[in-house]
């Protein structure tokens, strides 16, 4: 088999047994791998009402046919039902782990059950072994990785949880290859609930390539395209993602103090330019990636990876904090403890507003940079105020009687782009299958960055079609599995060709779009069965009722209704957002 390894292992932590899972050619072709195949397999194993932290929940690690090949191909996806949202969730991470899984001879791993004592799994030559992990339980993710590599081999790639996953914080992350994170949705909590501390993978099994000549030409082509493109060839390498700070702030939509304002006075001090001038030691890259958006940084006392744009916002403007060192060290803490920075930061902002309004008697104040690291650490260990923060913003705000102060959609916190500044982004947040996520359909690209075309961000015209298009293409990229940043340089036809050259199957652009649509619709079906409907395709009231008074997104409100019906029509869903029978028939669902 070309591209895929043709082997998926299911491991039961209760009985400590493994078996291979047969996936037919047709399914592989219809769902590719990664997110798509993961969601497909998950939906067959688990119902939409399963408790994510229960023993019988499945946690799926999945790669795709392009993992380990061409470019930006070290990524992997983690799929399960999210303990944070209750929706289906796939969490994506970079680094090498995806390629390591394939080198170890498998496409993916399905984990069920619960180990009696902490274990880690090692994957070699297609086989999975469980090992005692009691020595590592309680260690942070950096020490865990080093420790397990000492046992399993220095060349192995380790994906693990930290204390936050062990205490099952519902937004705990899975960390791999030092500081890469499968951050959103609380996948780390699921690992913790299974007493699974880590997975180590390694090996040198090659990925078979169907068309070696075509592969060489494609690789050369990709090198050229990515290098020539100003975003992938220059900007991301030199300035990283935080170059967006000044851009989004200049557009008046840099969410400040829990989305109450759109302009942060100290944005410059937390920008990519500032990081490059002060903290940056060098850029870092994932497996086979020439883009190199990673930031290896150091503060006076500590070093680590990041911060990325989302983190710089979540611990920065969102909290009224302009101390870049504090932000960066909070980021390091999240990496070490295994916590999603976006949800962590957003929850703190919600907590600050709850505190300010008197709804919560705790006193957390805007701009209190000094306490940032403590709050993060306490959350990971669920102690003191951290026990409350570990609820995430939705449950926290509901608990204190002000649910509208949680800036979340379906339970997942909205990231660093205020939807009042970009109508398409508003629709994207509202209709994302895993909750408030900016990556399902990154409308910032056309609406702000002008890529690949420039659109008026305040117009609702044509946004529905575009959101659906982006969601579908992104589903394909997440299933191949490749890095989304490639999308700044290449379009769908190139992904089609990459798949053809590696797998030897005669994919077409239209087929790829159908695959994307199928995956997105399958996710939607799962969510529908879990009880999500039109009422959940919405945003917190702030975005419909409160206008900014200053900045270039002032006096704007989200006009979701104008776009939502259009969106359902484009998707072939009914007025409640349920896929129509003919849509399901078209997609073979």
């Amino acid at each position, binding site marked *: 088999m070309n591209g895929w390894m043709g082997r998926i292992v299911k491991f039961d932590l209760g009985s400590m047994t493994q078996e291979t899972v047969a996936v037919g050619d047709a399914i592989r072709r219809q769902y590719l791998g990664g997110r798509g195949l993961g969601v497909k397999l998950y939906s067959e194993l688990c119902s939409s009402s399963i408790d994510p932290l229960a023993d019988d929940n499945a946690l799926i690690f999945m790669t795709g046919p392009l993992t380990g090949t061409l470019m930006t191909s070290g990524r992997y996806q983690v799929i399960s039902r999210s303990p944070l949202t209750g929706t289906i969730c796939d969490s994506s991470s970079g680094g090498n782990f995806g390629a390591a899984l394939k080198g170890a001879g498998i496409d993916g791993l399905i984990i069920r059950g619960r180990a009696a004592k902490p274990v880690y799994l090692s994957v070699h030559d297609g086989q999975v072994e469980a090992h005692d992990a009691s020595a590592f339980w309680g260690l942070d993710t950096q020490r865990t990785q080093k420790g397990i590599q000492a046992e399993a081999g220095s060349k192995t790639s380790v994906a693990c949880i930290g204390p936050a996953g062990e205490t099952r914080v519902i937004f705990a992350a899975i960390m791999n290859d030092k500081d890469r994170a499968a951050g959103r949705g609380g996948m780390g909590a699921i690992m913790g609930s299974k007493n699974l501390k880590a997975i180590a993978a390694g090996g040198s099994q090659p990925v078979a390539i169907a068309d070696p000549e075509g592969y060489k030409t494609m690789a050369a082509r990709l090198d050229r395209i990515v290098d020539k493109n*100003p*975003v*992938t060839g*220059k*900007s*991301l390498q*030199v*300035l*990283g*993602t*935080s*170059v*967006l700070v*000044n*851009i989004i702030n*200049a*557009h*008046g939509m840099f969410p400040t103090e829990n989305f109450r304002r759109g302009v942060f006075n100290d944005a*410059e001090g937390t920008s*990519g*330019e500032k990081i*490059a*001038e002060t903290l940056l030691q060098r850029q870092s890259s994932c497996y086979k990636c020439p883009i190199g*958006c990673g930031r290896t940084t150091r503060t006076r006392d500590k070093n680590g990876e990041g911060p*990325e*744009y*989302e983190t710089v916002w979540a611990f920065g403007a969102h909290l009224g904090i302009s101390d870049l060192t504090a932000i960066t060290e909070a980021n390091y803490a999240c990496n070490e403890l295994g916590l999603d920075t976006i949800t962590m930061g957003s929850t703190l902002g919600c907590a600050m507003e709850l505190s300010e309004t008197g709804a919560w008697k705790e006193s957390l104040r805007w701009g209190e940079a000094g306490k940032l690291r403590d709050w993060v650490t306490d959350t990971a260990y669920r102690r003191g105020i951290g026990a409350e923060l570990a609820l995430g913003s939705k449950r926290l705000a509901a608990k204190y009687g002000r649910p509208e102060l949680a800036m979340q959609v379906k339970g997942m916190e909205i990231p660093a782009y205020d939807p009042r500044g970009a109508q398409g982004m508003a629709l994207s947040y509202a209709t994302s299958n895993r909750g408030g996520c*900016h*990556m399902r359909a*990154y409308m910032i*690209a056309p609406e*702000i*960055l*002008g*890529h*690949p075309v*420039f659109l*008026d961000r305040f117009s609702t015209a044509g946004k529905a079609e575009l959101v659906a298009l982006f969601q579908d293409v992104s589903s394909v990229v997440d299933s191949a599995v490749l890095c*989304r*940043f490639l999308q*700044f340089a290449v379009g769908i036809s190139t992904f089609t060709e990459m798949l053809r050259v590696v797998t030897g199957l005669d994919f077409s652009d239209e087929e790829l779009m159908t695959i994307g649509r199928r995956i997105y619709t399958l996710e939607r079906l799962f969510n529908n069965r879990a009880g999500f409907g039109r009422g959940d395709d919405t945003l917190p009231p702030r975005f419909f009722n409160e206008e900014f008074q200053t*900045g*270039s997104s002032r006096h704007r409100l989200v006009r979701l209704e104008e776009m939502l019906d259009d969106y359902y029509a484009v998707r072939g869903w009914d007025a409640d957002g349920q896929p129509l029978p003919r849509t399901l028939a078209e997609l073979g669902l």
Partner: protein
Amino acid sequence: MASRCRERWRSWGFNLAGKIAVKFYGLMRLRLRTAAIEISGDGLTIMTLLGLAEEKTGQSFLDELLDKDKGLLTGTIILVNGENIRLGQGLQTRVEAGDSVALFSPAGGG
């Protein structure tokens, strides 16, 4: 947009000293080692303004923003008082004294 403001200021006898603020971001800022400069002028097109800015900083940076044919690169963002010139008259958009122009070379992220 800014013209009503300017008229009011003028009627009160204030002179905004005819300066246009030009702010550099992203790769340009790193290259020029300057965050912002001021250009004297009123009613200049963005194209002219960019030329003057190059003269003033003594460095060429237009290739970060424009292609060989002096058109905007995909991804280049130029804001006049927060509004994207692509929604105005592009490089022919005119700026007035007191306006603030922000220049961003193509960038991206997530």
